[in-house]
């Protein structure tokens, strides 16, 4: 296998152009932390983007940062922290998830996979912070889209298209993101002793209150190794007097029936890091891992239903909207049960399940990404062809024939 490691835009352009000429598809790799996410591929060439690294411009008061696409995430976050800022979408790293604790996730990588952490419910997803980029498409051409300002509607919003395309449309060379101030103070209200139905109710109520809950998670009793009783966690962020006020209100409005504690600063950070990095399901490496997005109020019921039909452990993030499920023993990894449950008894349920971790055989046997209706799948295939007509960028990573 030939490995290309371009150092700049021109070399990137050449590498894609040559792969196109040789008709030898490329696997795109940057930090390598999420290499096993997606359908397994067999590509004759590897395009190692990791040398496309370095922050190119950052002006804190403009709330915008521009960096080479493969700049390590930790480098970006350290620089932002110096000015009291952050990537508000709380990108997950998932290093240990794929057993590669030494890999270095990159900014372009989390954008290309559209990965967002617990603050998704308040601050939006990675895609909501992705302002613009420069890239080489599968046509071997350099193009750009978007801009370096936080508000822009000039032309189609191709940043959204790149976010979540897993490197199947273009190789990103430079990206611009919106950044935001770090909250001055953080506190997490933890309620104990909730069964799934109660958790669903508490999270719905908490998120309907004007207290700006910035993250809401639920760990059901016994269902994840760490939780002896079911616990719901609600995070508050902001200026100290505001957090103090909202914390009291939240406790008095929600938790008369439940025991509650408050985690401050570091303890709170540890909890949300765990939720973000799927630590409640850590060490279950033999299990198949699913990440499922459903309407938030359905999450708890959904988790219970899955655990009823399958040997499954689960927990909730995103106020119930994100269900993490670890399945053992099912031949299809639980795909059929999970996907039926998304549609629900009435067939009207919306959502999608992504197979995050599973053997290569499983990942080529069942759909890693949610199967689409024929018309949507055909449209998506035409979009792929528009950017990568010869299927030389990560072919087959998202869908079998593209």
């Amino acid at each position, binding site marked *: 296998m*030939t*490995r*290309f490691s*371009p150092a700049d835009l021109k*070399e990137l352009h050449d*590498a894609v152009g*040559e792969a196109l*000429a*040789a*008709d030898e598809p490329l696997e795109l790799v940057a930090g390598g932390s999420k290499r096993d996410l997606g359908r397994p591929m067999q590509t004759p060439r590897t395009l*190692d983007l990791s040398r496309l690294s370095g922050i190119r411009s950052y*002006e804190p*008061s*403009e709330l*915008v940062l521009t960096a080479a696409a493969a700049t390590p995430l930790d480098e970006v976050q350290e620089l932002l922290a110096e*000015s009291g800022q952050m990537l508000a979408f709380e990108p997950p790293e998932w290093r240990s998830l794929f057993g590669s604790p030494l890999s270095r996730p990159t900014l372009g990588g989390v954008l290309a996979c*559209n990965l967002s952490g617990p603050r*998704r*419910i308040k601050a*939006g997803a990675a*895609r*909501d912070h992705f302002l613009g980029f420069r890239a080489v498409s599968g046509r071997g051409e350099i*193009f*750009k*889209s978007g801009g370096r*300002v*936080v*508000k*822009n*509607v*000039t*032309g*189609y*919003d*191709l*940043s*959204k*298209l790149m976010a*979540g395309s897993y490197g199947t449309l273009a190789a990103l060379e430079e990206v611009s993101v919106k950044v*935001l*101030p770090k909250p*001055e103070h953080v506190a997490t209200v933890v309620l104990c002793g909730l069964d799934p139905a109660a958790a669903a109710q508490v999270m719905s109520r908490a998120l*309907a209150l*004007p207290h*700006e809950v910035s993250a809401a998670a639920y760990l059901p009793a016994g269902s994840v190794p760490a939780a002896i009783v079911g616990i719901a966690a609600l995070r508050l962020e902001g200026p100290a007097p*505001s957090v103090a006020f*909202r914390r009291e209100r939240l406790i008095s409005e929600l938790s008369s029936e439940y025991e509650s504690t408050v985690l401050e600063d570091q303890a709170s950070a540890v909890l949300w890091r765990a939720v973000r990095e799927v630590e409640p399901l850590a060490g279950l490496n033999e299990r198949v891992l699913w990440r499922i*997005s459903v*309407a*938030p109020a359905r999450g708890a019921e959904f988790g219970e239903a899955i655990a009823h039909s399958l040997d499954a452990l689960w927990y909730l993030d995103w106020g119930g909207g994100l269900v993490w499920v670890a399945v053992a023993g099912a031949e299809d990894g639980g795909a059929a049960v999970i996907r039926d449950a998304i549609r629900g008894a009435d067939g009207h349920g*919306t*959502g*999608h399940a992504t197979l995050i971790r599973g053997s290569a055989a499983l990942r080529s046997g069942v759909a890693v*990404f*949610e199967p*689409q209706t024929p*018309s*949507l799948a055909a*449209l998506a295939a035409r979009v792929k062809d*528009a950017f990568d007509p010869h299927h030389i960028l990560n072919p087959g990573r998202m869908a079998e024939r593209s």
Partner: protein
Amino acid sequence: MKMPTPDAAVLQRRAEIIAALRQIVPGEGVIVSETERRVYESDGLTAYRQLPMVVVLPSRVDQVAAVLSYCKEMGVKVVPRGAGTSLSGGALPLADGVLLGMAKFNRILEIDYDNRCVIAQPGVTNLALSQAVEQAGFYYAPDPSSQIACTIGGNVAENSGGVHCLKYGLTTNNILGIEIVTMDGEVIRLGGKHFDAEGYDLLGVMTGSEGLLGVVTEVTVRILPKPTAARAMLIGFAKTEDAGECVAAVIGAGIIPGGMEMMDRPAIHAAEAFVGVGYPLDVEALLIVELDGPPAEIDHLIGKVERIARDHHATAIRISRDDAERLAFWSGRKAAFPAVGRISPDYYCMDGTIPRGRLAQVLSRMRNLSETHGLGVANVFHAGDGNLHPLILYDANKPGEIERAEAFGSDILRLCVEVGGVLTGEHGVGVEKRDLMGTMFDETDLAHQQRLKCAFDPEGLLNPGKVFPQLHRCAELGRLHVHSGRLPFPDLPRF
């Protein structure tokens, strides 16, 4: 402004096309008479007018699908329209085209408080969404100034913003799902009540696509609990530079206000003359800063902002004491357009975004341009996110003034791009900025965008003549010359 040449063959078959459309949408849903078509001849960009060949007002998704697939089969162009408040000519009709009005899709289909979302038809107005959930303490965050009239379908097509979007985002950040009908007549659902669309983010692509990719027939929006309270500050500055630096310092201090708006001297005077709420008149720039949240947070932040403002030589600071006063502070800003309409027979509203740090420089160069073009300009500015709205003052009855206003506007937008900004922050490209796209994008950039259009609408029948300066055939765009068999780049590092 050159629009695609009308297709004589289509115009010749007008009667036949009308008859077929009447089969799909019976009764008053097909509008043919010239007087009734006049209503639709322009949108909010009134400088451009064009009678459509025929207007169709469907009320069901299957009718939309049937109209589109019929038009595709016949090679007839289609222009979607919501309330027609676009300020970039996005809904400008075509002489040989069907104008597809979505006004009859005016029902809210579901309110789901548990999942904090509302499902609405595209013709529901922006304000009606907030009103529908107000009792329960919720609202829909993006609030364009046109919110009493503009539709959520139009908002999706334009990715509209409002004065609260620095903190709460644009349309694209506040919708969860849509249903669209493509030019093939296929009905496709993207997203739903859950977070993040599956597969490629076509929901994100549709948002802001200006009616070129598909017709939106249903929208699921997120609703948010209303903040406990809000207070506004009026801060006057003797120097624009100080105002600009104050904005940067507020953000630098980690404060993201619910709204942060700026007006320049001409805009302040026009607004004060119109609403009389006591704006200071002896200042060069006026900031309105709104802070929302629990009272404890607001008090804390107002104190901080006040100190920052004083450090930046603010000459006047007022803090709203109650909600009536807060709304009064806003009334002048919200009425800025009609206020300017009173001091000038006509005005032309521009919409570029700049890096905020370049504000003083841009305003001073804009004053020079104003002299060169011999026309006045008043500025309102979403200061938090750098989105400028210069209002160019002109008189359409004076020969040559429209052309001068347009030339002035183009110069302003070129200036925005030159300092690192963009052509449009929220109003869209439409026909207005179409021919300026080349200042931001090269041919290859535009071709990548147009191929996306080809994936949705290969014949280019949906809203052609908008956004892209040149129409290319999809076959021509798709061509790719690959020199197979040889290694063209021998110097490339390989391992």
